């Protein structure tokens, strides 16, 4: 039972991280920085609880806001860069955060930050956050802002001549994505009780991208599915644990060949909706 809770907690945090990648992704911004924002949220909230005695939930929020501010600052140069260059910029940022963590004595430097107060209901908070995010993305999809985000991701030029302020929309998506990652980091820190820079390195950033792209990029259920599936799978097939990144690589190649939109697509949602009536999704299309 304890084991199940442990696995589900990590799965829940993975879902939050996959969704934090997905939000800027909708606007066409592919970010490898989410692990870095997670680190800022983790360290930020840990500093709040450990050094200042701030309670758990406010500490999470502060960690998230702090990550959001850094996301906003990083988001500004990111506006001008696309595709692979943005990937490099965000990768560089992630590395800066990691190296900063190794060198700042206040947060324990390379030895890490121990003694974070354990939150025994981490799983509850993690999935409460997941529920909040589901409502958020669901409302976003059928909203003016959500349509603008999708439009920017689809055709930035056309979106702009229709009156969409590309700069503020992309910045908004990028910053809020960072906030979400920061909150995920805070929940993680108070579950793991100990954090160190290596836990937030580039490869973790890559994992979140894999969750989202494998799971499905057409709708927010995709990253949720991807994170759940790829976090739980190693628990059922132990051997996979050692070959995790090889598996990710193989899965991605397979998906790009047979189903580039990922496992969960709009067609999946429509089919499920037909089966279950109103249980999945709401009115409209």
């Amino acid at each position, binding site marked *: 039972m304890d084991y199940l809770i442990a696995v589900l907690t990590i799965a829940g945090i993975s879902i939050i991280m996959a969704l934090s990648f997905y939000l800027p992704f909708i606007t066409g911004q592919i970010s490898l920085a989410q692990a870095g924002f997670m680190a800022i949220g983790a360290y930020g909230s840990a500093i709040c609880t450990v050094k200042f005695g701030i309670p758990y939930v406010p500490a999470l929020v502060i960690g998230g806001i702090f990550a959001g501010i850094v996301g906003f600052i990083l988001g500004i140069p990111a506006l001008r860069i696309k595709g692979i260059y943005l990937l490099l910029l965000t990768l560089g940022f992630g590395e800066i955060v990691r190296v900063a963590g190794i060198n700042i004595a206040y947060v324990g430097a390379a030895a890490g930050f121990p003694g974070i107060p354990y939150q025994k209901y981490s799983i509850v908070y993690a999935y409460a956050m997941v529920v909040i995010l589901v409502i958020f993305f669901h409302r976003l999809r059928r909203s003016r802002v959500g349509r603008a985000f999708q439009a920017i991701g689809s055709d930035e030029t056309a979106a702009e*001549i229709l*009156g969409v302020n590309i700069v503020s929309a992309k910045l908004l998506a990028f910053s809020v994505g960072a906030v979400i990652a920061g909150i995920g980091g805070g929940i993680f820190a108070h579950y793991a009780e100990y954090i160190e820079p290596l836990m937030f390195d580039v490869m973790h950033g890559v994992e979140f991208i894999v969750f989202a792209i494998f799971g499905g990029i057409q709708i927010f259920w995709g990253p949720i599915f991807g994170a759940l599936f790829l976090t739980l799978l190693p628990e059922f097939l132990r051997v996979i644990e050692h070959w995790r990144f090889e598996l990710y690589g193989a899965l991605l190649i397979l998906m790009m060949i047979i189903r580039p939109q990922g496992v969960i697509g709009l067609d999946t949602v429509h089919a499920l909706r037909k089966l279950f009536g109103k249980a999945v999704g709401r009115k409209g299309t």
Partner: protein
Amino acid sequence: MILQIRDVTKFFDGFCALNGVGIEVEKGRIHAVIGPNGAGKTTLFNLINGMYEVTRGEILFKGHSITDMKPHVRAKHGIGRTFQIVHLFDVMTVLENVMLGRHCKTKTGLLKTFFRFSTRELPEEKQTREIAMHWLEFVGLADKAAQVASSLPIGEQRCVEIARALALEPELLLLDEPAAGMNPKETMDLTSLISKVNEMGITVLLIEHNMELAMGISHVISVLNFGEKIAEGVPPEVQVNPDVIEAYLGRKK
């Protein structure tokens, strides 16, 4: 004059795409811009839209200078546009595409979208959808509202793009080669659509290679060649203008 292009010059590095072009577009007219390929017509549209910045010169819309305004601000002021190659949002439905035309006319932000207790639809959202459906009916594509935009044939995609631009409530509509790739029946439908739009009071600025359409529907025609305006007038005048004929057909030997 709803649009005044004053002595507009555009250089792309060393290449001069437009040289001292001046065009005045009268409100309520259908004004065509024609010329051989490479004359600078689409560049001109991109400058009016704000996608490019002028190297020299001024552009005035409704009497105010818009030369330094970004594209999304110009849209808000009432300039709508369609493209030579259709720029629909492929992954979204036809209706969602047209609903985006309402973006600058609506204002629900992220906070209002998320932080509310009611699960009912926002009134602004309902209104957006209804107005979008209205424009889809106007172009005759209401039955395709739920289809993914990229699944429509090209002629219908163009009409969706026009509906989308109309949803913006433009006072000036820029149509870049709307008849490109259309068969005669589709072109006829398009011609009557443009007339209907103009009858509503919208000024139409039109780039067209289809001479029958351009000459048949326009009140005024400006002719560009190699980045310069070489002629301007009502269609019968332009048709017999020797410079225009030479631009298209070459000099008689």
